[in-house]
């Protein structure tokens, strides 16, 4: 229902925005020329249109619109799919969805295969001529079995009758199918059973139920029953073979010859054994297939085509819904169950996605027993212990306490300091964030910050100093072009699978980007500005701080924006490789259990976090370098 409202609202918003946009153009100044940046100012209404378009595509291609407008349509399409599925095997025989009859294609293929085999045997090394002759004669006999199957003359009356019977059953079904009295009413007991089962059936998209399979509507029941009948017809047809006495006689002859030959073979005559087996298989391939004389199945083909037309007509509104509201796919049946096929399968419906996202966000549920984002109470002592290095206690004069003769340990000043720096003391607790999203965020943040802290000074240094440029250039330029993920296996081996390895990988990514951008910024400073500052009496330090650094800021900030994107990409891949937490880990595990909704949630979260980072940096850019683009 919400989806329906949303769709309606979005369409209204799009139309409104477009109308507003058209009106705005009329009031616009006429003197702004093409290329004037002023022309791109504002335009929130286009943001609305863009976002709406995205959401609308998602709603439409995930079939959520279909689900909210016609919640029963999937069930009805499922019954139609059952009919299609039961017709499938029969349809494959005829050029209905293929170019040629299946038996035509088979005969063509096998004639080529037999010919090929004959050539192979003629050229085979290590075969006795006598064997070659026998093999070729067997193959020729196999070839002769085909006309026995395709000649009308040999078609048995029994087979003919069965074909006619089955054709009549299809015809009868075609006649009955559109009538109101089809299917025949069930006995009261069976009808009650059916209604009872229907009550237990969950709706489309309910947890664990992709498409409800039992027919819910009258029309659905019609298709369901027809599908059952068609299945019976199809099974009966495929259990029948056109094995007339003439064919069986020749087949027996061939098989006997093969058997006799095989019995005469030694264990070490593997080559001969292989050949004779392949020849036998070739014959069996023809034997298993349903090959009939060219016109024997014409009546049946016509009956199937007619039925197909009738059932399509009978679908009526379902068919229109299928075409309009189930784009690029449909519901398919496989035996008694139905499933979505096409984007409905891999593109989860927004309503499901947000419902599952809501579940995952609950701290008690989370993913793999870890919440997505939540807080835990952590003692201040642990934070102190993390930041203060342990060697502070070691360098204090004196010794750590030794146990005395009473078997007790008296703490002294040195051991008390050690307790503080290792965080072993009682303190109040503060909430700290935790969970998958936070872990990923923290890793990117740390990697990025370290990259900026080390990369920017080094980059500026390299831009200003001949030694630094020459010394660090080969180092940086050699490792920079290597894709960060190429380092991943090595980094994981050296730094382990914990946070250290991942943060280091991200540091490597951001470090090189920051160096390049800071260096470009520093060396791109206009000489006239430096001269001006120098002549006004600025010291070297002042020139660096007041002229060169502000001048490189635009480049540095652009570098940070690039680095954020690169870091996210690398992080997710690194969490794929070895992870216990993080969004990449969630996505990788969800993929293994085919939880497409969760996969889309992770993609969505990553997009949102990336956007958040970018918006923050844009704000920083606006604040720190307002002069950019105005010089």
């Amino acid at each position: 229902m919400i989806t329906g409202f949303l769709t309606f609202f979005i369409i209204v918003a799009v139309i409104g925005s477009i109308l507003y946009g058209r009106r705005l153009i009329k009031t616009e100044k006429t003197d702004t020329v093409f290329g004037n940046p002023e022309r791109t100012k504002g335009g929130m209404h286009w943001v609305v249109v863009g976002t709406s378009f995205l959401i609308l595509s998602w709603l439409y291609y995930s079939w959520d619109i279909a689900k909210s407008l016609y919640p029963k349509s999937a069930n009805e399409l499922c019954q139609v799919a059952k009919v299609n599925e039961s017709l499938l095997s029969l349809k494959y025989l005829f050029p209905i969805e293929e170019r040629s009859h299946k038996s035509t294609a088979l005969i063509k293929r096998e004639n080529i295969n037999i010919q090929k085999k004959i050539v192979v045997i003629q050229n085979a090394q290590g075969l006795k001529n006598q064997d070659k002759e026998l093999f070729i004669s067997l193959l020729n006999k196999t070839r002769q079995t085909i006309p026995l199957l395709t000649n009308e003359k040999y078609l048995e009356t029994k087979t003919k009758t069965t074909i006619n019977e089955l054709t009549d059953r299809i015809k009868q079904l075609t006649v009955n199918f559109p009538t109101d009295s089809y299917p025949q009413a069930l006995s009261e007991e069976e009808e009650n059973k059916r209604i009872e089962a229907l009550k237990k059936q969950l709706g489309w998209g309910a947890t664990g139920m992709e498409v409800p399979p039992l027919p819910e509507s009258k029309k659905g029941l019609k298709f369901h029953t027809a599908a059952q009948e068609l299945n019976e017809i199809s099974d009966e047809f495929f259990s029948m073979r056109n094995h007339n006495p003439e064919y069986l006689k020749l087949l027996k002859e061939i098989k006997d010859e093969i058997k006799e030959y095989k019995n005469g073979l030694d264990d070490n005559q593997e080559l001969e054994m292989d050949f004779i087996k392949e020849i036998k298989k070739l014959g069996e391939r023809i034997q298993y297939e349903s090959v009939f004389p060219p016109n024997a199945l014409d009546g049946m083909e016509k009956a199937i085509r007619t039925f197909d037309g009738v059932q399509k007509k009978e679908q009526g509104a379902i068919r229109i819904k299928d075409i309009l509201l189930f784009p690029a796919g449909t519901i398919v049946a496989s035996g008694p169950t139905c499933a979505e096929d096409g984007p409905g399968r891999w593109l989860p419906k927004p309503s499901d996605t947000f419902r599952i996202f809501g579940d995952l966000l609950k701290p008690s549920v989370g993913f793999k027993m870890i919440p997505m984002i939540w807080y835990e109470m952590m003692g201040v002592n642990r934070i102190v212990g993390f930041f203060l290095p342990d060697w502070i206690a070691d360098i204090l004069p004196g010794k750590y306490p030794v146990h005395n003769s009473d078997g007790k340990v008296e703490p002294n000043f040195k051991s008390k300091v050690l307790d503080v720096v290792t965080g072993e003391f009682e303190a109040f607790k503060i909430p700290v964030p935790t969970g998958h999203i936070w872990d990923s965020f923290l890793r990117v943040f740390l990697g990025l910050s370290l990259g900026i802290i080390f990369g920017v000074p080094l980059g500026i240094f390299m831009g200003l100093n001949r030694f630094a440029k020459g010394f660090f250039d080969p180092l940086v330029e050699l490792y920079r072009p290597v894709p960060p993920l190429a380092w991943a296996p090595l980094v994981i081996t050296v730094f382990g699978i914990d946070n250290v390895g991942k943060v280091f990988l991200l540091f490597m990514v951001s470090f090189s980007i920051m160096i390049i951008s800071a260096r470009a910024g520093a060396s791109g400073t206009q000489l006239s500005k430096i001269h001006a500052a120098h002549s006004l009496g600025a010291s070297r330090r002042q020139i660096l701080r007041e002229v060169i650094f502000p001048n490189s800021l635009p480049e540095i900030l652009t570098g940070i924006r690039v680095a954020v994107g690169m870091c996210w990409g690398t992080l997710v891949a690194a969490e794929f490789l070895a992870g216990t937490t993080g969004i990449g880990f969630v996505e990788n595990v969800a993929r293994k259990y085919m939880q497409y909704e969760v996969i889309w949630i992770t993609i969505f979260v990553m997009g949102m976090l990336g956007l958040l980072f970018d918006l923050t940096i844009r704000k920083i850019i606006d604040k720190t370098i307002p002069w950019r683009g105005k010089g």
Partner: protein
Amino acid sequence: MKKIVSLLLGSIVALTLTISAAFSAANEVRVAFFLEWALPNQEDKVKKTFDDALGVPVKWTNFATGGEMTEAMLSGDIDISYSQGLTPFVNAVNAKAPIKLVDIAVIYGMGGTTCVAAKGIDKGNASSKLDGQKVAVPLGTMADYVFKETMRVVGADISKMKVVDMNPEDGSAALVNGDVAMACLFGGTSIGKAKEAGASVLTVAEAQEAGIAGIDITSVTNKFLKENPGMVRTFVEVTHEANTRYNAGKSNMNIIAKDAAMDLAGTKKQMGGFEFPNAATMKSKYMNKGGILMTYLDVMGNMFATSENPALKNYSKVVDTSYLPN
């Protein structure tokens, strides 16, 4: 403005068409298999017996995990997955993927899939020593199942461990480095490497006693089953012939080893732990109602069920024994 609208509408139509056109049949059979997992019919794969028997070219593609095989089957790039683990298959059918099980490829003891723990951890003390430790498990694979079953046998609590999701190659490296206390793996090379740093928690005999065994199966897409039932039957038949040949000791181990990207000794050792039942045994002992395979499907189906993809009530509808040779 008009241009933009027509561009958008055009792209919608184009997208719809491309998605529908992605599923067109080719005149070849595409089969998925594993490297480092030596099986008798690889001899026929090399000798092209399959191509001859099926009458069309057979294209073999190797995969790293069974889950990837399912993904390829769903996108229409693979018709038959040979030797897919039972766990990824169960995950796929729980997610309503249109595939069916037609044959058992191999039954293996814990020589082929096992949990290797670091030195000092064994069956007796695993329940206490693994608490709070990291363990490497390729989630959603047969090794994941073995991990859960092994921990049940030794009485260890999985929720107290930190499970790291790693492929076997990475898992063995992490165990050797000391990053994890235990690694659950499959594949001869990875297990061999991991055993340099530790030992299996359960021996092959102990695992067998506890009822832990691995089953790899052959799965086929429903579409291919409907279209080419004869080809599926022939594929299964050739595979069974290769198994019979192997059981009789007549397989060419050099060819198999080379095709599996392993050395001869490793191949022989790995295949020593494999069991290839014949069709009659499968029908009477494994795939019948209440048979071993069906019990496994039920147990695993519930073990790996999630709220979105719950276990099926009845797994017999995804198993079809009619393609087995008589």
